[in-house]
């Protein structure tokens, strides 16, 4: 049995290596996409373009503005003269946020009255707007706290102690760099797309060319054929994974905090699941084109939407959450985040490995049944 599996794998490997053009695409595309996505898919917002309209023009108002400007999130790109200019500046995208300090700002603070400050935020992109809003609130609050502190101490000569002093510390991804967070998802996405497409097309091509018939009239069993097809593409996909992790380190400084053996195990289990999905697709499609399209839809969409790559699974409605269980990427992303970012021990993600193996076994069994029943390969 082993020798027949190996002879199919060897033949397949020869074909893969011989097709230089496809080989180039197989290796270059994921790396290219990783770099492109890595730079594009980021939720970090810094250097918010800020317009300033300071009608008060007092010591305190200038102090407030310079506080905003000194934070890493805001850059003053425009000093606004008239209030009527704000609209067109926001329209043209010259600024993302405008701060308006009315006359009497300083006086009202001194009189211990509430001093209104207006922020106008470009709300076209809801998520960016809400992030800007939270930055704005945080900046204003810390400014008014400082003002109160100064005020109290100048009056009483006492140092005011804040009742609660919050010093947040973020673990695992200390600088809250979203690229770190997205790399696992990208890896899962690229690997599933490439492995599913490669293996399903390789089998359907044999169906189209009729070469599969020579295998069908031979003593090779359906399982041997499937195993013989999975092995070479598992090797190729593992090389792609290694390459992408290396590129993640090179371009985005993502280091593997956990064990490389765990990383290998997790990736191999994930690929077994995706490759058996590809095998199943090949049993239901008759042409390379159909196989390609099904592979793309089945691998890409769920991984983008349901795996927790971009949208957190916890915030999905329950019915969609249940649907997300059939996405192998869901488990792999957990495994990768554990190993790459947290460096947690094996027990934390061992269940995910088992899910992936169950997934792979199920698809292989269905494929074997389909091949036997309907001469589907």
């Amino acid at each position: 049995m082993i020798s027949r599996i190996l002879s199919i794998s060897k033949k397949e490997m020869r074909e893969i290596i011989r097709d230089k053009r496809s080989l180039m695409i197989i290796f270059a595309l994921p790396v290219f996409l990783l770099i492109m996505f890595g730079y594009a898919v980021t939720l970090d917002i810094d250097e918010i373009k800020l317009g300033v309209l300071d009608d008060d023009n007092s010591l305190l108002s200038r102090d407030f503005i310079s506080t905003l400007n000194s934070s890493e999130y805001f850059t003053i790109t425009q000093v606004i003269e008239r209030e009527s200019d704000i609209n067109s500046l926001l329209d043209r995208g010259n600024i993302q946020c405008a701060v308006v300090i009315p006359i009497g700002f300083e006086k009202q603070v001194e009189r211990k009255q509430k001093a209104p400050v207006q922020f106008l935020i470009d709300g076209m992109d809801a998520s960016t707007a809400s992030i800007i809003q939270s930055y704005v609130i945080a900046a204003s609050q810390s400014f008014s706290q400082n003002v109160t502190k100064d005020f109290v101490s100048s009056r009483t000569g006492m140092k005011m102690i804040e009742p609660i002093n919050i010093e947040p510390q973020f673990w695992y991804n200390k600088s809250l760099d979203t690229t770190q967070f997205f790399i696992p998802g990208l890896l899962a996405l690229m690997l599933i797309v490439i492995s599913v497409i490669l293996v399903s097309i390789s089998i359907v091509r044999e169906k189209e060319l009729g070469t599969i018939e020579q295998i069908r009239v031979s003593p090779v069993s359906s399982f041997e054929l499937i195993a013989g097809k999975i092995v070479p593409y598992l090797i190729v996909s593992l090389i792609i994974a290694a390459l992408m992790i290396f590129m993640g380190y090179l371009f985005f400084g993502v280091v593997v905090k956990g064990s490389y053996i765990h990383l290998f195990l997790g990736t191999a289990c994930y690929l077994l699941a995706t490759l058996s999905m590809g095998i199943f697709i090949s049993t239901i499609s008759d042409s390379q084109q159909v196989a390609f399209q099904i592979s793309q839809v089945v691998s890409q969409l769920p991984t983008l939407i349901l795996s927790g790559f971009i949208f957190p699974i916890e915030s999905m409605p329950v019915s969609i959450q249940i649907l997300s269980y059939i996405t192998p990427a869901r488990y792999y992303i957990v495994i990768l985040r554990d190993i790459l970012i947290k460096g947690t021990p094996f027990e934390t993600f061992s269940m995910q490995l088992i899910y992936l193996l169950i997934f792979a076994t199920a698809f292989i069994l269905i494929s074997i049944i389909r091949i036997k029943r309907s001469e589907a390969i």
Partner: protein
Amino acid sequence: MESAISLNNVKKTYGEVNALSGITFEVKKNIIFGLVGPDGAGKSTLIRILCGLLKPDEGVIRILGKEMPKDYNMIKDDIGYLSQKFSLYTDLTVDENIEFIAQIHGVKKFHERRDELLEFTRMKKYRKFLAGNLSGGMKQKLALACTLIYKPKLLFLDEPTTGVDPVSRREFWLILAGLLKEDITVFISTPYMEEAERFNEIALIENGKILAVDTPAGIKQKISNTVLEIVCTPARKAYEVISDSGDDEVQLFGDRVNVILEGKNSSEDRVVNLLKNNGVTIQDLRKSNPSLENAFIHLLKESA
């Protein structure tokens, strides 16, 4: 001696279409057996059923003494199949293709046999060529070498010479004839009547039915009468005239008609006069023995 293949009332339908309607015949061991019939007669369907690639709807099939498809796995190493379409890996070399087929059949020491086969098929020069770069005839020889690498006892060839040039075709037949020394039964399908002369036995198939199974000579004897081969213009007119007279069977072949003299009153003179009276110019007239083609058309008309 036990037959290589025995078929009893084998049926296969594709939806509404009857591809095979009750096929029954036997194939003896160590002969070249030809399945002869026009395109769409059911040749490929029958071969694919015999190879285990398709399941019959009905009927009993025994191959090398084993029942199909129940005992199929027991005889997989004894059967070779060469499909109508070239079905080897175009991106592998000649050597690698043979190696692959040998290995999936569990043949470990294939090197010597491979050299022999490449010698035998005069392919040695091309062993490092990619199969995709070979000519049609060489592809066919490679496919043959691949199926012979694991020494099958029964070889199925589905239209091996269709689309192959005449020189390569001749060579292919020589190779096949040489094969019979090796204790092998060859089952070939072909649409070419002239090739049928090369087989030890043939089965004529049309519309999913077997019209006759016999040696080529035996089949020809099914028309005992003389055949007049008449080259004439217009040939179509000649065909209609004789056909309408109703006495003799007439077959049209391009610029000529073949008349099988079988009617009670039929004679060469009657036919010649009939043509002359109807304004057909006779260029050449020859008496000949019936060919397989004549016999086949005759049997077709009989069955219809």
